[in-house]
């Protein structure tokens, strides 16, 4: 029997590497470890329990909560019964949750704790099919007397009884599973409209997992940190797919606050994080170094300079002189090694990043200190992998070559990237129209991203295909491309650019409170709040310099030089997912922002130097209020002389 489903892979692992660790959770102060055989036993018990509670083949089971072994087990247990687990973002609001649960016709929900149960109860009325709730953590659940709420322990108890009465049930159910069966629904929070439920089969996930495990030589002694949302395809592929295929160990952190400590303790050998996290870490490195003693700073600068020179070359096994090698070795002892250690990356063999473009400085920083960081390009619809940078062919501005078994092409007209592979999703659940739009008859998937394949055969992504526009001067306008360039500056947290159908490009920027605040303190710029800081002329001046540098970069590119940023404004508040300005994965919601900040946008294309802006906002404690301020508009110098050259 080939192991073509996760429950079957679990059986295989329990057989072949029974005592080896499968999953760990930092709980009650230590890393509680569960071996593959224990994991299998747990999954079996839960599966029996679910069956005893009436879960049928094809039922949908929502999984709500942080990364916890119990939730992963519940997922696989559901799969063992032929039910379909639907992981849901644990921080999604009630309306989002309600939509997903309704759309997926969920009848059963496994949640982490009271908080999630409360949310589920809230949406229960509008979700008629939702019948049974299960919680893992009994804290605060004593007073819930509803008979449809059970603890996972009760389920497990029931499971044990059910098992005693139905020997062989589990094995039979597992055997019924086929690779072509549906493994899960993953809802993608699109930038517009309602989330779409991507239907992935075992074949999709397992083929991509096997491909990547082989390609990247992933072994069964890897340690990873399972900290990204379970509802995200990446976690599904890394913490279940690759984990089950390769047989390595996933580690669940204790809580969100202790993430960094947990990262350091585990010291993963294999680490994935979106660019944002690497960016934050680098920022904190720089901030902490500034408080360091002089000698240490000098040492740091000296060796980081050296790393910049030869680090990447050494990583890529290129030829480097003996002296430089020795110096790099010294640097490894004094700076890089300790640095990696404090960041929890001493043992890392592979680091991946994806999801957004990463700043070249950030990228080079990590690579130069000897971390094999690579970019990949993927989608939920592709079961993650589309392209990946092969070892020694790593560039900051590309996302790598097509993975084995993935076909790739770029539509010459729309510049849209398309791919085809075994990982391609089955369909969008109950949304044939979208399915047809995205997936062609012969299996090609529209990514919606514009890009091109460069002379190395690497894919380069510019922007969302639909967002790429044209300025009135005929120049191509790729907002995300500009925004990413802006966001690579430490002071800029988020940027939104405008320009399609306009005379020039303009930018709306929200500053990075930590970085700018730190800078302000050192430069005696006093401020009391984000709003005040963002309005400081000194800050404007710093940002203007950043923008002018972007303009200079753009001037070098013939197609984009017309898209230089002529005017900008600093927003009085951070762009926030709670206000709907960003998606949960921190992507800009353009349409929403256009409406919300129309006054500012008008001012950017008008002549005034100040505009009053008032927006509704959600405070940390959940209250809503109005955030208002006068926002200054500033001009930036254009480089290369002729932004309107093509207009004539």
């Amino acid at each position, binding site marked *: 029997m080939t192991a073509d489903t996760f429950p079957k892979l679990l059986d295989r692992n329990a057989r072949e590497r029974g005592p080896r660790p499968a999953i*760990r959770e930092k709980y009650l*102060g*230590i*890393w*509680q*470890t569960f071996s593959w055989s224990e994991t299998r036993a747990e999954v079996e018990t839960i599966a029996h329990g679910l069956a005893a509670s009436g879960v049928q083949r094809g039922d949908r089971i929502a999984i709500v909560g942080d990364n916890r072994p119990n939730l992963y087990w519940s997922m696989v247990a559901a799969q063992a019964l032929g039910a379909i687990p639907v992981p849901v973002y644990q921080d999604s609001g009630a309306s989002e949750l309600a939509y997903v649960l309704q759309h997926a016709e969920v009848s059963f929900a496994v949640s982490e704790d009271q908080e999630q149960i409360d949310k589920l109860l809230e949406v229960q009325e509008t979700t008629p099919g939702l019948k049974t709730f299960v919680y893992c953590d009994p804290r605060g659940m004593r007073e819930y007397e509803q008979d449809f709420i059970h603890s996972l322990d009760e389920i497990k108890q029931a499971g044990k009884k059910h098992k005693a009465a139905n020997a062989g049930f589990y094995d039979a159910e597992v055997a019924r599973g086929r690779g072509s069966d549906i493994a899960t629904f993953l809802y993608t929070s699109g930038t517009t409209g309602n989330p779409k439920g991507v239907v992935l089969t075992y074949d999709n996930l397992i083929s991509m997992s096997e491909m990547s495990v082989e390609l990247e030589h992933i072994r069964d002694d890897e*340690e990873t940190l399972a900290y990204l949302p379970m509802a995200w395809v990446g976690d599904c592929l890394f913490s279940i797919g690759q984990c089950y295929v390769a047989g390595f160990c996933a580690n669940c952190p204790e809580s969100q606050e202790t993430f960094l400590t947990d990262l*350091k*303790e*585990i*010291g993963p050998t294999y680490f994935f994080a979106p660019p944002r996290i690497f960016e934050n870490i680098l920022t904190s*490195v720089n901030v*902490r*170094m500034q*408080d*360091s*003693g002089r000698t*240490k700073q000098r*040492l*740091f600068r000296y060796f980081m300079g050296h790393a910049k020179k030869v680090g990447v070359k050494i990583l890529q096994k290129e030829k480097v002189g003996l002296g430089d090698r020795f110096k790099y070795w010294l640097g490894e*002892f*004094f*700076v890089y*090694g*300790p*640095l*990696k*250690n*404090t*960041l*929890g*990356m*001493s*043992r890392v063999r592979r680091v991946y990043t994806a999801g957004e473009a990463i700043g070249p400085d950030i990228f080079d920083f990590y690579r130069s200190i000897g971390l094999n960081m690579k970019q990949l390009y993927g989608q939920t619809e592709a079961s993650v992998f589309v392209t990946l940078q092969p070892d020694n062919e790593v560039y900051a501005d590309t996302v790598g070559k097509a993975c084995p078994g993935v076909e790739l092409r770029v539509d010459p007209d729309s510049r849209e990237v398309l791919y085809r592979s075994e990982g391609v999703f089955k369909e969008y659940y109950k949304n044939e129209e979208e399915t047809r739009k995205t997936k062609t008859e012969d299996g090609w998937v529209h990514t919606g991203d514009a890009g091109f394949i460069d002379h190395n055969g690497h894919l380069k992504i510019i922007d969302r295909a639909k967002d790429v526009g044209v300025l009135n001067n005929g120049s191509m306008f790729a907002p995300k491309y500009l925004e990413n360039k802006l966001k690579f500056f430490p002071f800029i947290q988020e940027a939104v650019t405008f320009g399609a159908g306009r005379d020039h490009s303009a930018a709306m920027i929200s500053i990075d409170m930590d970085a700018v605040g730190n800078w302000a303190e050192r430069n005696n710029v006093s401020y009391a709040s984000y709003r005040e800081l963002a309005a400081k002329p000194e800050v404007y001046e710093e940002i203007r310099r950043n923008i002018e540098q972007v303009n200079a970069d753009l001037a070098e590119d013939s197609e984009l030089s017309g898209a230089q940023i002529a005017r900008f404004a600093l927003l009085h508040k951070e762009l926030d997912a709670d206000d709907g300005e960003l998606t949960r994965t921190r992507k800009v919601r353009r349409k929403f922002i256009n409406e919300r900040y129309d006054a500012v946008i008008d001012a950017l294309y008008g002549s005034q130097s100040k505009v009053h802006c008032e927006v509704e906002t959600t405070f940390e404690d959940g209250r809503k209020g109005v955030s208002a301020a006068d926002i200054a508009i500033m001009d930036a110098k254009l480089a290369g002389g002729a932004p309107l050259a093509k207009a004539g």
Partner: protein
Amino acid sequence: MFYREAGQFYTSYAKDQGIFQLRQDKYGLWGILFIAFIVIPVGLYLLVQGGLMAASTKDYLYNSIFLLLLVNSMAALGLNILTGYCGQISLGTAGFMGVGAFAAYKFSTGMNYRNQHEDDAGELVSQLVPMLPPIDNPLILMILAGAVTSVVGVIFGLPSLRIKGFYLAVATLAAQFFLVWCFSRVEWLYDYVSSSTIQVPPMKLFGLVVTGSETVMRDGQQVTIYPAAETKYLICLATVVFFAFVAKNMVRGRIGRAWMAIRDMDIAAQLIGIRPLATKLLAFAVSSFFCGVAGAMLFIFYLGALEGAEAFNINESFAVLFMVIIGGLGSITGAFLGAAFITLIPIFLVIFFPWLGGQFGIPVSTALVEHIQFMIFGALIIIFLIMEPLGLARLWQIGKERLRQWPFPY
């Protein structure tokens, strides 16, 4: 800088509660033990064999430096338990060490008492009569000495229930002065010799001569075997290491937590159910036990013969207190650091000042060196209290923290 902690995680409480949280620290300790047990004895032996070092220098190193260092470490461990962990100041350490020394003496000579009777001629005849068989095993003697000192310590610790802080410090002075008085006035303690001096009898351990000398026939000739300095050193080292391990175990477990609770806030400690008297007395008992072992060690291995009132005078108490303060209150490592500091500084000064004087042609008397020593001690204590009240151990810890966070400051 040297720390690579990433990936050091624990999957069970037993491991998580180990003495060392970090692998590097554990290796560091094994390294130090390796040096102390193997590298030093073998290295010195080879140096002497190779003619690179005079045999007398080697013996000086062992007998005058290493042994003293170990004895002081042991005493500092003891006082640190009482003062550093349980928060009870004691100025009677030397007195307790003396009890240990005299107990060891009495047990090793069979607990003699004097039987006086008139002989046939009507003259008064004195005769020493042993009450117990003499014990010649130094390890057993040290344990017995510790046990006796424990009892004495508990008696003098009794007032700690009612009195605290300085008052208690003064009360422990009572122990110091009373005990020292006993050492020169209670004849039974020193077997009634007029000089009130006690002398260690010959002892053997595992067939090795430890004290005194032994004459054996070898190849038909009488050969006198003197104890090897290495033997004494290794016995003391093993003893100190063992008791340091015991001390560490106590302070990291429930006993230590009870002591520290009493130290940090005795009222709150009572309200969580800690019995103050029992806890403090236990600290006195354990601390005195350690001091007693230190005293026995001082007597058996380091001095061989001593006069109680002189060897255990109040300055000795202060010296141990200084070790604890400079080393670091509430730290096992600190006890060793402090002992090393206070032991080595005078040795250094004794060599350094005459040398310095010689350079300028100024004769430096021993008395002057001693004065300078006292002044430096006094000044150092004050400087430490001002700069780093938690002592060398704290500096060590800060340094370690720096290395762990390197290249970051925090």
